[in-house]
């Protein structure tokens, strides 16, 4: 045998070194993405430069680029560099940039993350942005400790989407969403699934902290209060019992189908592929779902406990918000851009309802005629539910963003019978409490 110990060790070292080098090589293209576009610094020849980061889809990227171009045309002394991204990696990158003191000046923000940044002083005070024309209930969600750090970029609300073709196949009418209860949703889901011969009646419930939030509010509680957790084990257990009941009634699919469905991207989800009749989504996704399904999709209100839509305590959700870095060198320029986005038809005329329905009522009135048919439906829906809206939920405190993952994980244990609903609820609440940093 030609290989002796020394040769072996040298060989091992060589391969290890090669592996390391390859690892480094692989890292390079990914990491180079962010650093170059850091404008940050102030005036070269009186010019102000801003970096603007957002996550999105091809349509949103196109709109945002167009808005940036439009803004720079109107404000020749400002240079904006765009940093588009994709939702899941966006947060890794933003956290790393912030840690390195390199956060973009203008940041597209999400409700689940705003307090992580806001309570730690990473976000600029935006009280100078004019929100006086905003529809009631659309400003407060961007406040952390009474300070405005996120400006609503578009109104959203939780809805149940329905695939009318599946209902036709089952020879059923769409349910009356003004009177339906949670239990009736199970009945409808079970009936339509069995009559139409599809595996899933209602999809995407397992990880919906939003619907769970609606459920909790109807029980007279909140997900979060300024003091921490706003609900008890009892409400969580009631929710898990509801999920179990739906699984047993064959309304939500088998546990395996439920977990599988939860990991799917929108384009492959049950309502798009026609394997499901109903599905939880946010209202601004109607257009994307309709496009992916290539057919008309209907939008329904989430159910209520009392069977009365006016008592369902809905709310306007910020589909996303605009924040600015506390460390920006050009705070006034950043605020000016956010102000422009929020309050001018120039910006809204380009972005339309891509980021949700514009919260500024006057701006909405000026641009609504340009909306696509689906966006018109959403705008009308947002208007229609005005009387069903309760108080605005506060942003989840730091650590609260984990609620969806925890709700889903312990819920999975419950529907697989690995835990009772009482145990699952207890563990969910205990773990969430320990995650909260209030």
């Amino acid at each position, binding site marked *: *045998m030609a290989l002796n*110990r020394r040769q072996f060790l040298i060989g*091992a070292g060589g391969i290890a070194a090669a592996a390391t080098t390859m690892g*480094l090589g692989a890292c390079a293209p990914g990491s180079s993405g962010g650093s170059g576009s850091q404008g940050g610094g102030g005036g070269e020849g009186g010019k102000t430069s801003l970096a603007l980061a957002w996550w999105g889809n091809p349509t949103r990227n196109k709109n945002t680029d167009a808005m940036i171009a439009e803004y720079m045309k109107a404000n020749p002394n400002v240079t904006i560099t765009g940093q588009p991204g994709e939702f899941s990696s966006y947060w890794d990158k933003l956290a790393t940039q912030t840690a390195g003191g390199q956060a973009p000046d203008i940041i597209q923000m999400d409700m689940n993350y705003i307090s992580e940044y806001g309570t730690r002083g990473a976000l600029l005070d935006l009280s100078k942005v004019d929100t006086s024309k905003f529809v009631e209930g659309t400003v407060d969600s961007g406040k952390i400790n009474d300070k405005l750090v996120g400006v609503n970029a578009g109104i959203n609300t939780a809805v149940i989407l329905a695939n009318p073709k599946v209902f036709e196949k089952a020879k059923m009418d769409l349910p009356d969403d003004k009177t339906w209860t949670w239990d009736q949703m199970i009945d409808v889901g079970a009936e339509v699934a069995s009559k139409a011969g599809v595996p899933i009646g209602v999809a995407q419930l397992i990880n919906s902290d939003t619907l769970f939030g609606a459920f909790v509010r109807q029980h007279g509680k909140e997900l979060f209060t300024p003091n921490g957790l706003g609900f008890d084990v009892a409400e969580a257990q009631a929710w898990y019992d509801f999920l179990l009941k739906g699984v047993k009634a064959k309304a939500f699919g088998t546990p*395996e189908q439920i977990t*599988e469905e939860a*990991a799917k991207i929108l384009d492959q989800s049950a309502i798009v592929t026609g394997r499901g009749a109903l599905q939880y989504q946010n209202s601004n996704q109607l257009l994307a779902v309709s496009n992916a399904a290539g057919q008309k999709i209907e939008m329904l209100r989430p159910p209520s406990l009392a069977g009365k839509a006016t008592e369902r305590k809905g709310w306007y959700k910020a589909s996303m918000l605009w924040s600015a870095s506390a460390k920006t060198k050009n705070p006034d320029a950043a605020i000016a851009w956010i102000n422009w986005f929020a309050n001018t038809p120039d910006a809204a005329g380009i972005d339309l309802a891509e980021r949700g329905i514009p919260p500024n009522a006057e701006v909405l009135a000026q641009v609504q005629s340009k909306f696509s048919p689906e966006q018109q439906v959403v705008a009308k829906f947002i208007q229609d539910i005005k009387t069903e809206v309760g108080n605005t939920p506060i942003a989840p405190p730091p650590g609260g963003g984990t609620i969806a993952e925890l709700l889903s994980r312990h819920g*999975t244990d419950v529907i697989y019978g690995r835990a009772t609903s009482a145990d699952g609820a207890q563990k969910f609440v205990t773990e969430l409490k320990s995650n909260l940093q209030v």
Partner: protein
Amino acid sequence: MSAISELSTVRRAKATTPEEKRLRAKEASRDNKAGYLFLLPWLIGLVVITLGPMLASLYLSFTNYSLIQAPSWIGLDNYTRMLSDERFHNALKVTFIYVFVSTPLQLAVALVIALLLNEGMKGLPFYRSVFYLPSMLGSSVAIAVLWRQMFEVDGLVNQVLRLFGIPATTSWIGDPQWALWTIILLHVWTFGSPMVIFLAGLRQIPGMYYEAASVDGASRWAQFRKITLPLLSPIIFFNLVLQIINAFQAFTQAFVVSNGTGGPADSTMFYTLYLYQRGFVQFQMGYAAAMAWVLVVIIAAFTAINFFFSRYWVFYGD
């Protein structure tokens, strides 16, 4: 070093006079300088890209660090918290099952295929490439996505089972009982790199040993046990060490198959995935750094154990 020394004007003979000694020392220091200069690019890379961040992460592991605010010193708190962190224990369990099931299986498959390919068949380069292909693709995101679709309720695997009349309704990736095993299977499937190394090792075993054994009437099995295995043992050891280290660091497959959640119900929550979640999802980079250091210790321990036991079964030719 030796190539540079040959340029030296000083003779190799032992230095005797103080003058010669001084010259020799100067010479040596020049040699050293040149050596370090050649080392420099690698050294800078090591210090700046590897060592620096490693030391920084060691410091961070003793702090409460949210990424957004400056770290604050909390001593050993992160480490003591791990003792009572049930999800951490679960992540350890999942990772250990993964490492100690998939590594031996993968090496066994790699060895068997290498033995078959070593028989000198027609079209060997073609087969070698075909068997190597999965390991080029296996850690890619595309394959993990494909894997997810193959093992769904109505995925390819169940469709094939149904062709044979088996009423397969299990979701292999959706059921917490099975999800980890689909990822283990994916790992075993990527046996290409150890296979190529085995193949190279097999090629180095002189054919005359087998000829002699055949003349003495040794069976194929006896030849495999008495000739192939001992002579291949350094290669097996090498593969074992590398693959265990690799397996402990598995991330991509679990991340993609479970959409970054480690689900269903934490059944594919690998150590590295949990570390990532703690650091980037829950903003607990201090805890994540502590976890990374515990992983370093675990991997070092297993590598040391491997080297310790190697003296009992690894046979070096000389």
